[in-house]
């Protein structure tokens, strides 16, 4: 691994090493660009990952101070944990389930296709599916997505068998083991899935794609890359001309450091990215960096989510095998006859006993709850994930009354479900229950959203500078050498799990940054 001087102002600083930051770092390094990647979390490995839900959670999750407000149920159930995302090298690609779906054509034109929706701040993306297709193809190849590039689908586990049987009886057509960035056969020096059932806890076999053991070592091999784990960026600085000039960060010993930079790319996930831009406010940019539109932190999306669990007379043992290798796509379409705009996916999901107790029905107690736990081996489960409406009032702000470990204002996450989100969730709950009833369920349960793993939209892309924070390349409208490189860029949420699109945008952004550097535009 290379080592760069803190005063080397030729480097590109990438903040975060997950799907956005890890991918962007490698892509830039492959082009000969020097990159310093600052990651707030510590480095783990396949060997140090733990097949234990709570221990792994403590090892990987972002547990810094956060607060919540708004009417969404999470604010009551998990007031200090709005999101279940990671603080570790590889970011949330250590925790993600691997579902890798392209956004659909109409989802890039949400405002045009859905029309004006009261209380929603919909906008078309400044980029189309057609423009992204070549990059989606590169991302799928890089990540080894099943059912692309000649890679076979994963073998379905018991939980999938139940979903499939119900889906077919109900008349759904598009049900299979998904497009997963998990090796079904050995590929790219990584083995095939061992069906561990601990996808969320960091994949110990390495079959699941994570930047931790793919992009990052590849970047290191170029000699152009320096990764600094346990380096928490607290401020992005700029020069008199208004261009960003470097970052201030706290190192692993809690000592303040300053790294100069030719360009800065922020990929801290959709809570920390806007928070950092807001924390970097200065005399020149009193509302925070890249915030002339006032949109930094706004339009926070977390996908419409929910889960259905169902109990059967006979064992399912859903915990065995790949957690999310099972999908029904029939409801992903946009069809307002169902009473809402946009669509949703139904994907298999299971939790172990410790997390089932924590998440099945937060706050519940008594015989009914105990009954579900008693029937753990006979349960099947699915996750419902769909497009939620961007709202200006759903936003990440700085909470002056709550401080993090460095004394900086903690992020507050405010969220109110839009009526469209509620209508979609109710529809999805009902359909999920029907799937399981068709498969013979004796009882079904509607589990409310978990702390969010899909956090999107807080620095959104827009054609016009007044409507968003970054342009179609993720470059901020206000500051040419400041980029946003994670899911914060999403103009709207789409129904699909976002990682594939984040990786796709990062690959494309790397081309753009390289071209801008070559032409001396930045």
């Amino acid at each position: 691994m290379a080592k760069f001087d803190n005063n080397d102002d030729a480097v590109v600083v990438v903040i975060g090493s997950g799907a956005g930051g890890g991918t962007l770092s490698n892509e830039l390094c492959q082009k000969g660009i020097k990159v310093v990647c600052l990651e707030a979390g510590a480095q783990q490995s396949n060997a140090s990952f733990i097949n234990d839900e709570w221990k792994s959670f403590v090892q990987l999750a972002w547990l810094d101070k956060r607060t919540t407000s708004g009417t969404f149920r999470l604010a009551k159930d998990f007031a200090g944990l709005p999101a279940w995302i990671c603080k570790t090298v590889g970011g949330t690609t250590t925790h993600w389930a691997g579902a890798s779906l392209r956004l659909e054509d109409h989802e890039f034109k949400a405002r045009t296709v859905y029309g004006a929706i009261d209380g929603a701040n919909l906008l078309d993306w400044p980029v189309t599916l057609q423009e992204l297709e070549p990059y989606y193809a590169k991302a799928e190849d890089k990540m080894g997505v099943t059912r692309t590039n000649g890679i076979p689908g994963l073998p379905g586990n018991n939980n999938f068998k139940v979903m499939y049987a119900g889906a077919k009886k109900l008349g759904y057509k598009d049900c299979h083991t998904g497009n997963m960035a998990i090796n079904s056969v050995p590929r790219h020096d990584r083995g095939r899935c061992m069906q561990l059932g601990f996808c969320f806890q960091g994949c110990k076999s390495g079959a699941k794609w994570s930047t931790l053991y793919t992009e990052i070592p590849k970047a290191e091999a170029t000699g152009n890359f320096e990764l600094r784990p346990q380096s928490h960026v607290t401020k992005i600085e700029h020069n008199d001309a208004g261009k960003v000039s470097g970052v201030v960060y706290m190192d692993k010993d809690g000592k303040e450091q300053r790294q100069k930079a030719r360009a800065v790319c922020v990929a801290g996930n959709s809570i920390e990215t806007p928070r950092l831009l807001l924390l970097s406010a200065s005399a020149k940019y009193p509302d925070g960096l890249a915030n002339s539109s006032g949109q930094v932190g706004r339009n926070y999306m977390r996908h419409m989510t929910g889960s259905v669990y169902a109990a059967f007379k006979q064992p399912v043992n859903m915990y065995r095998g790949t957690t999310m290798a099972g999908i029904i796509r029939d409801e992903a379409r946009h069809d307002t006859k169902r009473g809402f705009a946009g669509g949703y996916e139904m994907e298999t999901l299971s939790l172990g006993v410790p997390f089932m107790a924590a998440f099945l029905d937060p706050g519940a107690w008594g015989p009914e709850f105990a009954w579900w736990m008693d029937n753990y081996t006979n349960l099947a489960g699915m996750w419902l994930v769909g497009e939620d409406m961007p709202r200006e009032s759903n936003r990440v702000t700085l909470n002056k009354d709550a401080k993090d470990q460095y004394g900086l204002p903690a992020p507050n996450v405010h969220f109110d479900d839009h009526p469209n989100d509620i209508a979609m969730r109710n529809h999805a709950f009902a359909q999920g229950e029907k799937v399981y009833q068709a498969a013979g369920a004796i009882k079904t349960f509607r589990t409310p959203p978990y702390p969010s793993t899909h956090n999107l939209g807080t620095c959104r892309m827009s054609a016009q500078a007044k409507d968003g924070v970054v342009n179609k390349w993720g470059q901020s409208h206000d500051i040419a050498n400041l980029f946003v490189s994670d899911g914060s860029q999403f103009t709207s949420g789409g129904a699909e799990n976002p990682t594939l699109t984040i990786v796709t945008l990062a690959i494309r952004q790397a081309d753009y940054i390289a071209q801008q550097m070559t032409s001396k535009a930045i």
Partner: protein
Amino acid sequence: MKVIPIATAATVFSSSCNDESGEVPKLDLPLTRRSLLGGSGVLIGTLVAGSPLALLAPSTVWAVELKTLSKTEGATLLQMGRVLFPHKKLPDAVYALLAKDLDADAAKSADSAKMMRDGIASLNKAAGGDFLKAKPAQRAAAVKSLEGQPFFAAVRGKAITSLYDNDMAYKVFGYPGSAWEKGGYITRGFQDLKWLPSPTLEASPKPYFG
């Protein structure tokens, strides 16, 4: 996951507890044993001999030592746990972990100890004077009456990890926990469900074995 810290048979007596009724009778420990354990109270019970759970323990007799709360207070919390999350198959040894974890919180903070003692007093009052002597319906009503109070939230919240994240609970609920060291489920039944028709090979291709 926690491994249950069960004392060996040498520290306890076989006459101490009947796990079927959940009753924790008076301890008959000699003073020397009490000073050896050095805490404020000890919860003791037995696991049903020959049960799968007994295989996890060095002895069928278990003991959980309390540092701050009294034995009666600990027993009350244990029984409150049984009302909150009633699992016939979970032995008192697991519910005693709830008392132990709450006791650890009480030992760390005077505020927490006060909340716990005040809460237990409220629980006794709501149960007509003595929660431990109250009938099941009275116990249930007493617990319900405290819902929404910080004490209730603290006990309920703690129970989620105390009761459901330990080796006995895993065994009772049929969850094997860590799969890595056993090679995952690729050859151990990840698709062994036989009571529904199998998906097509297009929807679910065969696993790869080289």
